[in-house]
């Protein structure tokens, strides 16, 4: 008997004793009281992200250029995914064609991406490796991550957030910069992931 067959046989044997499963109740809150992109949600997202030590800017299509310049201040080389909107592209952009080595990525100063969705309740942004976000390594190795969130991408609750992500794609949920509570359970920000997370909320 293979291990597979044996483990499955064991499970079936164990379950021959009666179990009375119920259909999971779904009466918890699944949708927020605010529609995606509502000003209250942008406000809440800002508060939550700030609470976990991310920096948050808001921008309009008109001010985006200068806001991004502020967010990228002091950087020389900024890696960007191949599908980043042309108008967001900084002068110092290094477009990732998939050939940059990890060592290369370790020498760039920042990464600039879009995202697929964000949840205000928890201050979470989601990347799904689409063309405007790039492969996962580029948002991981550089020490500063500047992420543009479009207002319409902002939902309120975690259940709403999950409906906007495709679980068959590589997903990264990000809630603030890298952190640890491993020393005396005190939270300190900045360990292995990007130590600076700058979120730009774009009211377009």
């Amino acid at each position, binding site marked *: 008997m293979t291990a597979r067959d044996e483990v499955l046989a064991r499970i079936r044997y164990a379950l021959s004793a009666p179990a009375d499963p119920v259909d*999971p109740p779904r*009466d*918890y809150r699944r949708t927020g009281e605010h529609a995606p992109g509502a000003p209250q949600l942008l406000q809440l997202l800002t508060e939550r992200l700030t609470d976990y030590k991310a920096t948050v800017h808001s921008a309009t299509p008109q001010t985006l250029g200068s806001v991004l310049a502020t967010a990228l201040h002091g950087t020389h080389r900024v890696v960007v995914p191949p599908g980043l909107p042309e108008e967001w592209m900084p002068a110092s952009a290094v477009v990732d064609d998939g050939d940059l080595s990890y060592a290369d990525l370790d020498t760039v100063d920042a990464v600039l991406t879009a995202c697929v969705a964000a949840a205000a309740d928890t201050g979470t942004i989601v990347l799904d490796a689409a063309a405007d976000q790039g492969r996962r390594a580029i948002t991981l190795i550089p020490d500063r991550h500047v992420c543009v969130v479009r207002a319409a991408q902002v939902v309120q609750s975690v259940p709403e957030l999950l409906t906007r992500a495709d679980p068959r794609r590589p997903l990264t949920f990000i*809630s603030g910069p890298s952190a640890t509570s491993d*020393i005396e359970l005190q939270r300190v920000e*900045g360990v292995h992931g990007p130590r600076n997370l700058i979120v730009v909320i774009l009211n377009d």
Partner: protein
Amino acid sequence: MSKVFVGMPAHAPAGVGALHASESFPAAARTALADTQLRRNLGAATTTIRAKREAVVGELADWEQLRLAGQAIKAATMARLDEHLIRLEEEVTKRGGVVHWARDAAEANRIVTGLIQATGADEVIKVKSMVTQEIGLNEALAEAGIAAWETDLAELIVQLGHDKPSHILVPAIHRNRAEIREIFLREMPGVEASLADEPQELAMAARAHLRRKFLTAKVAVSGANFAIAETGTLVVVESEGNGRMCLTLPDTLITVMGIEKVIPSWTDLEVFLQLLPRSSTGERMNPYTSMWAGITEGDGPQEFHLVLLDNGRTAVLADEVGREALHCIRCSACLNVCPVYERTGGHAYGSVYPGPIGAVLTPLLTGVLENPSLPYASTLCGACFDACPVRIDIPSILVHLRARSTEQTRKPPSAEAIAMTLASWVMSSPRLFGWAGRAMRAGRLLARRGRIRRLPPPLSAWTAARDAPSPPRQTFRQWWRHRDGGTP
């Protein structure tokens, strides 16, 4: 279980892994209780995390509904565990992953070792994972000449300190900043003596120490918090980014997961992603959650192996009361609220799973006679049940395991068993009980000024620290019989 038949649920075998305690809980606890540094560290840390958890749980008006949903999803999953695992296997395979099955720790260790050897690597980076601790993977790899680098800060502290984990979430909770600084100075190459004992600086030292490993490692080993059957998606919840590094950068990823970690659908995850971070680190959401399904061309590891592990889980599933312990999502909220854990720490439990959940899960996995003192390592105060995000009724399982323990013991009856049988006999008879109550008056001979300062064994354990009350002249029932107007 003395003899195991093919296809019968089996307990986790002894001799491999970290489930079998080498001494009894009371004995190990005695040592821990005397460690004042440990007591102080644990007291401070659990107090901090309790307050944080309470604050973020209080933010959710639907917390109880989420707990009920979490409990029900897990129960429904277990009821069709075989089907969900088969679906998971199908989906992972469809997306380019390879699924392996392991009956026990030794088999899982063999599989993982073989997979690493096939890549030609002699070292791996690891994301913190309870299950690889449980099966003793690092030791097995070391025997095969493969170095395993723990990358979670707390695991790193434990590994560098040649120590054992003492908490599910924060394995180095028993260490304070000064001790961690000392470990880093001693064990971490290139650390300057000027290293301060500030958590921020210590975290930076770990970053510098592991950076090169992350960028050059060829193979990573991880656990999984959840695996979604209908999509083949694996989920790892973390904070530091070491998880992202391990899950993204190496060419080969090997994920070991207990079979109970599967959940049926993507929708189910919305419940656990709310329950887990608030219960474990006391955050609304942990900084990073990584999810992947099989392999993605041009992004992340191009070789993915999933090892599905039994190692006693089917034996837990066969226990109608105990199977609820398989619902555990390893948040460690029960540890943080447990008054016993807070004082003894995790090492006293002798297993990789400490605290209230460990006191049930460990003996369920190994068979209760392998860890007979663990079900008794609780006052049954119930704080763990209230804190559990998936409503595992730990006190009831403890009581259930205590019964299993006394019923399975084949030795001649202990003094305790004889006393309990005798007491049951006396207490079943009002007349005998009345006599016994009056006979207790003899205890008054031991009393001075209304209290008894010393009793013979086994009651001497009581009077070592507490007075015992002097039996009254009259029991209540005697008083009742004599009182004016008392009705019989």
